[in-house]
């Protein structure tokens, strides 16, 4: 088992090294096969691991000591349990599909860059697997930063484009801000508990050792980490910009896997989070605010990937809402379903972009339904799933979160439903503008429109199927299911506390949210099936179109002042004050040198005069001393 689990992680690493080192040697075909093959191998091993966990329960394996000193010991251990094995499947599974998809999508790249792309992807899978497999927070942190790195590399994949580089840098730095929070939380744990292994930290005994302040601080800091990685207010702005990367990357990293790391981390640490009321509220509020904010922005975006990006942010907000209200399994459920349908949507968008020759503006699309039938169909399924229409997967997961939110506070529920409605609206706005109506692009584009190759459509189909049926793993008992997922996760997150709701309430809530969503989607389809949005006219429209001016706000309030501050330090403090003091000392010496040497004026008379004065001075010195001593002695 030790080997199997080890190789789950190692295969992508091997792929990374293989592609990275051989980028000038191998043909594109070899690269593609190997890259996909290694991830597939991981996937297969993950299934084995999963089955094993199902059969025997959680497994912890020890490899070596990462850090082992007399004060702190951080082993390099992996832990496969219900939670991580689920994540393993999602990561490697979706990963495999996206690798497959990429082989076709990226085929125009030159071989070295093609290899580079797959190397990054493999490295990403490797990091992500480290993140979920690690048996302590430090290993998780290694993966955590690793995925940040890969995200950076992939966003800036087309490195000659300066804008993309800025986006990549922004992503990395915002992630780093979050990582700092995570890091501080780890330190806090080490200071208080002396260990970071889940096995010891996440137990009741450890909890007893921590004061409420400790727990609140630790969980808040952890949450800061999650904010960065999972793009929550205020650290969300990198995610929409991250769409600069190739579309499969957006699908894999910025929709399906990496951004859910925060959810994974909080779910993993649920004991701590549940112990802090304050943190839970913070998480829930930040989550729902993000969900709504992103949804409002998504309504007015015209870039196909931007819409999906804000939709991701919004969905992540939902997940955090779920975490905040204690519906850990609900959040994980949503992670899984979201992985499927968002990956599907992104890949679909990729297929569209591919067909449109890298045109991403939906106003220039329209009527693609007939030209791209498979893409259209799968995309539609994705939209329905995300809109929360039963019986597609999104419905179940979203509903579970909403139900839990209601149990916590009806306000959360109301806001959640508004968000859901907006989700339905903007998704179908997107769908309608893109696929319905008439084609609005150029003649040439119209001429070249074609369905994508099989390597691209296959993942679409598979994901569409998954999006449609994935809800099955979590059909609530209410509907006669037995919520397999929830049972799966019970050893880790405990029993979800939603039992308070009566069945009739639940049915009512479900009905309300679904009907509102359906109404919203119908409005959207109706409005956008013939025409696209023009330039925004109203103030609100502009406001939303410009993303609440948050980027501008950050730029003016944080980035520019800090930049100015740095300039001030460099130009004024460093140059004039600190170095000035150093050089000033030299200047003083030189100045006094110029002056003092004038005493030596060449005149013997003066010299002797100075001597006489010197004698007088010495006498006075001595005289003074004598007198003073006499004064004190008497």
């Amino acid at each position, binding site marked *: 088992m030790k080997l199997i689990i080890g190789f789950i992680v190692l295969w992508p690493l091997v792929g990374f090294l293989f592609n990275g080192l051989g980028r000038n040697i191998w043909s594109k075909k070899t690269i593609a096969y190997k890259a996909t093959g290694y991830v597939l191998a991981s996937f297969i091993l993950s299934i084995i691991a999963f089955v094993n966990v199902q059969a025997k329960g959680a497994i912890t394996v020890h490899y070596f000591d990462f850090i082992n000193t007399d004060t702190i010991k951080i082993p390099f251990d992996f832990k496969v349990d219900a939670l991580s094995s689920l994540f393993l499947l999602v990561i490697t599974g979706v990963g495999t599909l996206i690798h497959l998809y990429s082989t076709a999508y990226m085929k125009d790249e030159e071989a070295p860059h093609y290899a580079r792309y797959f190397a990054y992807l493999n490295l990403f899978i490797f990091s992500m697997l480290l993140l979920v497999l690690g048996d302590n927070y430090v290993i998780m942190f290694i993966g955590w930063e690793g995925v940040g790195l890969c995200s950076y590399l992939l966003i800036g994949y087309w490195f000659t484009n300066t804008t993309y580089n800025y986006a990549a840098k922004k992503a990395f730095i915002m992630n780093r801000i979050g990582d700092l929070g995570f890091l501080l939380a780890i330190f806090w744990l080490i200071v208080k508990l002396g260990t970071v292994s889940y096995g010891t930290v996440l137990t009741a005994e450890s909890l007893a050792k921590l004061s409420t302040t400790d727990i609140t601080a630790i969980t808040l800091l952890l949450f800061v980490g999650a904010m960065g990685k999972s793009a929550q207010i205020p650290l969300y702005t990198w995610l929409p910009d991250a769409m600069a990367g190739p579309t499969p990357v957006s699908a894999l990293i910025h929709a399906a896997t990496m951004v859910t790391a925060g959810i994974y981390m909080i779910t993993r640490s649920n004991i701590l989070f549940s112990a802090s009321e304050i943190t839970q509220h913070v998480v829930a509020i930040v989550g729902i605010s993000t969900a709504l904010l992103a949804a409002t922005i998504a309504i007015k975006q015209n870039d196909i990937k931007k819409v999906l990006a804000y939709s991701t942010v919004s969905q992540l907000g939902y997940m955090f809402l779920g975490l905040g209200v204690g519906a850990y399994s609900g959040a994980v459920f949503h992670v899984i379903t979201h992985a499927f349908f968002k990956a599907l949507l992104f890949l679909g968008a990729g297929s569209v972009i591919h067909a449109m020759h890298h045109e991403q503006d939906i106003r220039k699309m329209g009527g693609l339904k007939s030209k791209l039938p498979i893409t259209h169909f799968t995309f539609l399924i994705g939209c329905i799933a995300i809109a929360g229409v039963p019986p597609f997967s999104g419905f179940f997961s979203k509903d579970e979160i909403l139900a839990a939110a209601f149990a916590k506070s009806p306000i959360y529920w109301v806001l959640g439903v508004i968000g859901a409605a907006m989700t339905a609206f903007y998704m179908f706005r997107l769908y309608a503008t893109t696929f319905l109506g008439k084609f609005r692009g150029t003649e040439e584009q119209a001429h070249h429109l074609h369905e994508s190759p099989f390597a691209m459509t296959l993942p679409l189909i598979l994901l569409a199927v998954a999006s449609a049926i994935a809800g099955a793993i979590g059909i609530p008992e209410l509907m006669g299911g037995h919520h397999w997922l929830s049972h799966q996760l019970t050893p880790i997150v405990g029993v979800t506390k939603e039992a308070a709701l009566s069945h009739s309430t639940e049915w009512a809530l479900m009905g309300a949210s679904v009907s509102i969503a359906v109404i919203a989607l119908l409005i959207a389809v109706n409005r956008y099936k013939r025409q696209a949005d023009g330039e925004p006219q109203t103030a609100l429209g502009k406001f939303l179109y410009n993303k609440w001016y948050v980027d501008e706000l950050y730029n003016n309030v944080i980035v520019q002042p800090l930049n100015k501050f740095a300039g001030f330090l460099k130009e004024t403090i460093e140059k004039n004050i600190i170095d000035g003091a150093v050089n000033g000392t030299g200047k003083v*010496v*030189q100045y*006094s*040198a*110029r002056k*003092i*040497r004038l005493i*030596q004026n*060449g005149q*013997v008379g*003066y*010299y*002797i005069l*100075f*001597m006489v*004065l*010197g*004698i007088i*001075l*010495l*006498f006075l*010195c*001595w005289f003074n*001393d*004598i007198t003073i*001593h006499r004064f004190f002695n008497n």
Partner: protein
Amino acid sequence: MNAIIVSTLLGVIMMFVSWGTNNTKLQRNIGLLGMLVLIFANIAQMNGWLSVNFDTKGMLAFNAIGLYVNTILFVITFIYLWINGEEIDKIGSHTADYYAIFFFILCGVSILTSFDNLLMLFIGIEILSIPLYILTGADKKNLFSNEASLKYFLMGSFSTGILLLGIAFIYGATGSFHLNMPILNPATNMPTEHFLLSAGLLLLFVSMNFKVSAAPFHFWTPDVYDGAPTVFTPFMATVVKAAGFVAFIKVFEIQRIALGQNTWTIILPFVILSTLLVGNITAVFQRSVKRMLAYSSIAQAGFMLFALYGNSTFNNEALILYIVAYSLATIGVFAVLIKMKDYSIESFNGLAKQYPALAFLTTLFLFSLAGIPLTAGFFAKYYMLNAIFTAGAGIWLLVLAILFAAVSVYYYFKVVQAMYFVEGTPAIQPIEKSYERKLWVIAIILLVLGVFPSLMFNYLYF
């Protein structure tokens, strides 16, 4: 005693040599031979092989340190004469006379390392000084030399007056010229307060400060060192000054108690710090290397004055090492300087390219002066600081001392920079290999002492 007698005799011999022959080379070699004889004679007394002894009636007292310093100074003089022999010939046509004068000066040096009576101090100082006035003015046609000589003479005479007044006061207070005059109250074993004595000592202090060119009695130094024929300057700045320090210490080793230790720890640091200040700061802006070295010698004197701070074996060790390190390095630098066509720093430009070995040697000498490790100068400074700290000086004094040491690096390194880092052709006369080899001797001594300084003291203890 041997040294005094032999040096006098040698001086007389050299006078006769000057009448006997005009062959400067022969004169030079006789002089060098005489130096060897003198060194041998002194070593003979030091080791007790052979020494002329008669009752000096308390005028002189020979002790190990005095004799050792004699040896050191004689050897330094020998090295000086050996290196600069040809240059000395170029000053007028009195080679043998100069050697005679050197021997007379060395006689004065021997007296100053062994006097036990203020009369001998006075005579010693005069024997040391009067020939120096002459050496300074030896370049008769040179107005600078004339001027320096006259300045030196006038100020030197003035300081003699001060010295004599001091001695008179001391005599008035104690009734004796002897160094071990009764200064302690037999009853309390503490110094009695005697203003006349203190005033006398202070005046003595002043005139000794004058001799070792400590501020504010240093004014003659830059002008004289600058104006004197370049070949004589290092001798004045090293051997003569070192003898002055030995005499200074001899006088105040015991006598300072009469001033009161408190007074001593106020006026001495005052003098030391002003010396360091004036020497170092003024040296910074000199365009002439010769003048810069004159100021630097003031600064070095400031450091040597530390040896007066306390009295322990540390001080003697420190002073001995300092004398050797400073003297050899100064002689070395001047040996290079004298080959320069003019003494501006610019004339050193690019020396490293034309004469790499010479530049290296110069650098080494300057490093030693600056007190950079691996050279004897470092340990000289180290021992000195260690000594004063052991003697109870405050940290602040040490800190100030090293601040000035850092300033000194500034001007010494200007020469190094000119030699190594500035492009240009050095204004230098052709240097022969043999000349370089002589300088290597100095360099090796400095380097060896820079690693094993205790070689200097083994004699004192073993």
